Every structure is written in structure tokens, then in C-alpha cells.
């Protein structure tokens, strides 16, 4: 681009430094994540696996919320992925890694079909519609014992196959190993979700959220884009469900009830949905609070009560979520150091 050549170098170096810093941060993060399971007890490792899966669940949920629609059926969609992958492996003998991918595909397909009735509605009506659609799916699981196993669900779901080569042997029954498997799958999924958000597709999702009529008037097919967001979000929720099913080995309709959906909402709202990392922060912090603090205090039986209190407090005092704490702290720090440009005027 000859006409922008003059401006490129300056922007290039700044961008390169920022990119390097970003990459370094990622390397540290992954190093920490790789070391994490070795610092945990066996039962904590099991929780870590579920936490990684829940990170994908809540991040995929955020993609849907970019278009401004909040669903109450996301956990059921996760269940569609779980059931589909489990059944494909159990009944048809599909190899588990492939069945997981197909589970995600099944969840996406269900979402595509549901789009037609659901996206005739917006806002509150969509919320209720998605709840109804989810309950219908759950009733189907309960009603049809063959193949869904009825209220008891599916048991003895095939585990992820062990890797056995001459020098390498990985048993995915071990939580540590499944943790790393989930970490790889979830990281790859998050990368894709992130790329989507940063692309023009993400811009279009945001545009639909803020002014769908204006977006439509310049040629955005808002129905198609809402469907796209719903389908992508559902695909990754399905993958999360499949990861869950082949780890726990059993699924049932109650596991994907609206109670579970409320947790997803609390993670998202407490973390904050304005940024990509907000909901991840929400699920990590609340899981740590739940599993370590509440368990240590012997309060884990009143979990819903505490979660409710945390939700109310965060809406009142931290309306932009935990993610806004960082920005606030930074602003406060700058204030203490004196003046808004204190970062540039460190004492020599």
C-alpha cells in the first residue's frame, strides 16, 4: 500500500511491542496452567477439569450475548452435545474424538433449527422462548428412554481412548491427563471464538446489539447473523458438553436443568460480558470461591444462597463485572501517584 507506507513503521513497532508483551503473557499463562494440576489434590484436579470445561461453556455463551440476546437454553444445548457424542460413541461405535466434534455439530444443528422460531422474538421474549425450547429438549430426553435413557440418562459412556504408543502412554481416566486434553481443546476453541469476535463478524454482532434497525438498513441480514452467533455459540457449548460426557461417563436431564443455567448467568454477569476475558474471570473466581472458600467453611450446602448474594452485590457495586476491577484499580493507583499521566513522570 504505497499511500500508507509512511505511517506503517511507527504503527508497526508499537504494534510489535504490544504483540510481544501479549505473547509473553500468554506463555506465562500457559506455563501456570500447565503447572497448576501438580499443585492440586486429586479431587481438586477433578474440579479443575470441570472448570476448564465451564470456561468454554461461559465463553461460548458470551458470543451469543454479543448480539444482545440472552438465552436460557445454553446449558441444554451443551447437553445436546453431551448426549449426541455419548450416543454416537455408545450406539454407533464412533471413535470418541470424532463423536465429540459431531456432538458439537449436533448442538449447532439444533440451534440452527431453533433459530427459526426463536429469532422471531427479541429481548425478554427470546429469553423465555429459549427457556421453553430447552425444556422441550429436556422433556424429550426424559420421555424417550430409548435412546436417551429417560430420567436416569446415559451411563457408562465410553471414555476418551487411551493413547498407547511405544514410549508414550496416556490414560485419560486420570484427571491430570484429561485436564490437559480439555485445556488443549478449550484453548483452541477460545482462540477461534476470539478470532471471530475480533473480525468483522464480531463488529457486526455488536452492531446488531446496539442498533439492529440501522444494521439492517445498511444490508446486514440481522436474522442470519443472529442465527450465526447462536450456531457458533451452540457448537462450542456442544463441544463443552461432549468433553463433560466423556469425562464424567454419565449424563442425565437434571444435569442440564435451568439451575445450571443460572450458574452460567451468574458467572457471566459477575465476570462482566463487555470483554472476552470477563466471563472467564467470573467462572474462575466463583469456582475458586465455591470449591475452596465455601468448602473450607463448610458452607457448600448453601451454595445457591451465596451465589445469589454474590450476584446481587456485584450488580449493585460492580455493575461492569470483575473485569472492571482492573481498570478501576489502575485508575486509583494513578490517582495516588498524582495526576493522570503519572506513568510517564516516574521520579528519576
Amino acid at each position: 500500500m504505497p499511500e500508507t507506507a509512511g505511517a506503517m513503521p511507527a504503527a508497526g513497532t508499537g504494534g510489535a511491542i504490544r504483540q510481544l508483551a501479549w505473547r509473553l503473557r500468554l506463555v506465562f499463562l500457559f506455563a501456570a496452567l500447565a503447572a497448576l494440576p501438580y499443585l492440586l489434590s486429586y479431587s481438586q484436579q477433578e474440579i479443575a477439569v470441570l472448570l476448564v470445561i465451564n470456561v468454554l461453556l461461559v465463553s461460548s455463551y458470551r458470543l451469543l450475548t454479543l448480539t444482545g440476546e440472552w438465552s436460557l437454553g445454553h446449558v441444554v444445548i451443551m447437553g445436546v452435545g453431551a448426549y449426541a457424542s455419548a450416543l454416537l460413541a455408545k450406539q454407533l461405535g464412533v471413535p470418541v474424538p470424532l463423536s465429540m466434534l459431531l456432538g458439537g455439530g449436533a448442538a449447532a444443528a439444533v440451534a440452527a433449527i431453533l433459530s427459526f422460531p426463536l429469532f422471531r422474538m427479541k429481548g425478554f421474549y427470546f429469553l423465555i422462548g429459549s427457556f421453553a425450547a430447552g425444556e422441550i429438549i429436556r422433556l424429550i430426553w426424559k420421555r424417550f428412554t430409548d435412546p436417551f435413557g429417560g430420567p436416569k440418562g446415559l451411563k457408562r459412556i465410553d471414555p476418551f481412548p487411551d493413547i498407547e504408543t511405544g514410549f508414550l502412554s496416556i490414560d485419560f481416566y486420570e484427571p491430570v491427563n484429561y485436564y490437559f486434553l480439555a485445556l488443549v481443546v478449550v484453548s483452541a476453541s477460545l482462540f477461534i471464538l476470539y478470532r471471530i469476535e475480533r473480525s468483522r463478524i464480531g463488529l457486526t454482532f455488536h452492531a446488531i446489539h446496539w442498533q439492529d434497525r440501522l444494521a439492517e438498513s445498511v444490508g446486514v441480514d440481522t436474522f442470519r447473523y443472529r442465527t450465526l452467533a447462536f450456531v457458533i455459540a451452540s457448537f462450542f457449548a456442544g463441544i463443552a458438553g461432549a468433553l463433560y460426557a466423556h469425562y464424567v461417563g454419565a449424563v442425565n436431564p437434571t444435569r442440564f436443568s435451568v439451575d445450571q443455567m443460572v450458574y452460567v448467568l451468574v458467572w457471566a454477569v459477575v465476570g462482566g460480558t463487555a470483554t472476552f476475558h470477563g466471563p472467564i474471570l467470573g467462572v474462575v473466581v466463583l469456582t475458586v470461591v465455591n470449591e475452596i472458600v465455601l468448602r473450607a467453611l463448610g458452607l457448600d450446602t448453601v451454595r445457591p444462597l451465596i451465589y445469589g448474594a454474590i450476584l446481587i452485590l456485584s450488580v449493585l457495586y460492580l455493575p461492569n463485572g470483575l473485569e472492571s476491577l482492573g481498570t478501576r484499580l489502575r485508575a486509583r493507583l494513578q490517582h495516588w501517584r498524582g495526576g493522570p499521566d503519572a506513568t510517564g513522570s516516574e521520579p528519576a
Partner: protein
Amino acid sequence: MTMQGERPILEARGLTRRFGGLIAVDNFSFSVSEGAIHGLIGPNGAGKTTTFNVISGFYAPSAGRVFFRGLDISGRKTSALAAMGLVRTFQGSTLFQEFSVLDNIRVGRHLGARAGFLSRLLGTDRQSEREADERARETLAFFGLEELADEPVSNLPHGHQRMLGMAVALAAEPKVLLLDEPFTGMNPEETRCMMALVRRIREGGVTVMLVEHDMQAVMNLCDTITVMNFGALLVEGAPEAVRNDPAVIEAYLGSAAADGAGHVA
């Protein structure tokens, strides 16, 4: 004097829109010539905005048809109409308020920046995105907003926001631009500036149809004016003819004024 072509680029025949028992638009017909600046006026509640909403696909007509470049477009989706080259603006400052000025225009270039899902994901849409950005900046320069490209829209004064609304629509490269009350709430200076912009848009080959209350602006700007009353066509013609038409004066000022019009003038 005018740049109008012969064939109508936009036409409505017997257009009707009912809301329950209310007939907002009643067997209304008009035709807009290619290259024209065409005004649609009428007293409050005459059905101008409803007509706009029907033409631009937000409502389906209850009866009648809309033709765009000879094609029946009645009841088509707004986004499909935009893809054909029929783009509308909105009253007030309907913008993506949370976005930067440039991002507003980038959304406006939605149709011009096509790329597949995978190429978005892999970042191979960079070339088409760069072109879209350049075109967006050109559009901003056309409206004199290039300095404000990175400002959040909510920081912009009202007049700039209105211009930006037009810029977003223009970024979609329309053949016909429907302007919904472009001068409302503007001071005379801003109105004059906006009128010059509308003329320049027309010189760029875009046909303009506008709904407006500012009579002076409409009379100065438009080649042809269609007057609506009670959802139906009252008069259509050149500004001079419309201005002096007794039926128009009566519709705006009531019958007493029409009787006395000769006396007042």
C-alpha cells in the same frame, strides 16, 4: 435545470398500510425519477414515515406495490433492499453510539466488504478489510469528519451525528438514498451545510428521496415534491406549483386560511 432522467427509479402504486383499523397509508402512488431530489411532505400524521418504513422494508404493504428500477420489491427484507441499492437513514441520531466514528462507517460498508467465514477466522480478509477501511475514510472525508474518525460517537455534537448517520448510509453505496427528516433539530447554518451535502450526493449519481418538515429547505432543495394528507396523495409537482396550491395550503393551515390566502398574499 434538473438532472432528472425519464424513467422512474422508485415507484409506488396504490400503496396501502393498515394498522388494525387505522389506515396510515391509503392507496398512495408516487414516482421518483432517477437522479432527482424528491421531497415527501405533509402535515403531522399524514403517513410519511409509515410510507418510508414500507418502502424500506420495515413493514410489508397491506396492499399495493413498490417498484425499484422496474422490479417489484414489495415486502422484501430491508437488508435485501440495501443490497439492491435502496438505503434509508433514520430520524434523530440513530447510530452505533458505543462505536467509534470509523467503526460506524465500517458497519455501513458491510455489503462492500464481503469475505467468507473461514477467511475472517484466518485473517485472510485483511486485503478486503483494508480496502473497506480506506473507503470508510473517504466517506468520512466527504462529510468532513475524517478528524473525528477515532472519537466515540457519543462525544459528537448533534449536527455531526446527523451527518454521520448519512455517512453510514452512503457507505453502503446506495442508488437511492431515503432520508428521514435530515434537517430536523438543526440550526440554519447546519441546515445549509446539510443541503449542500445532499446536492453533492446527488451529483455523485445517487437519487435522493427525503421526508422533511423544514419547508424552506424542501422548497430550495427538491426538484419534485409529493404532498401527502391523511395517508393519500394530495399533490405532486415542482416546488413552485406545490407552494401555491390551495389544497396544500388548506392541508397545512386549515380551510379558513385557504379562503383567506389570497387576501394574505
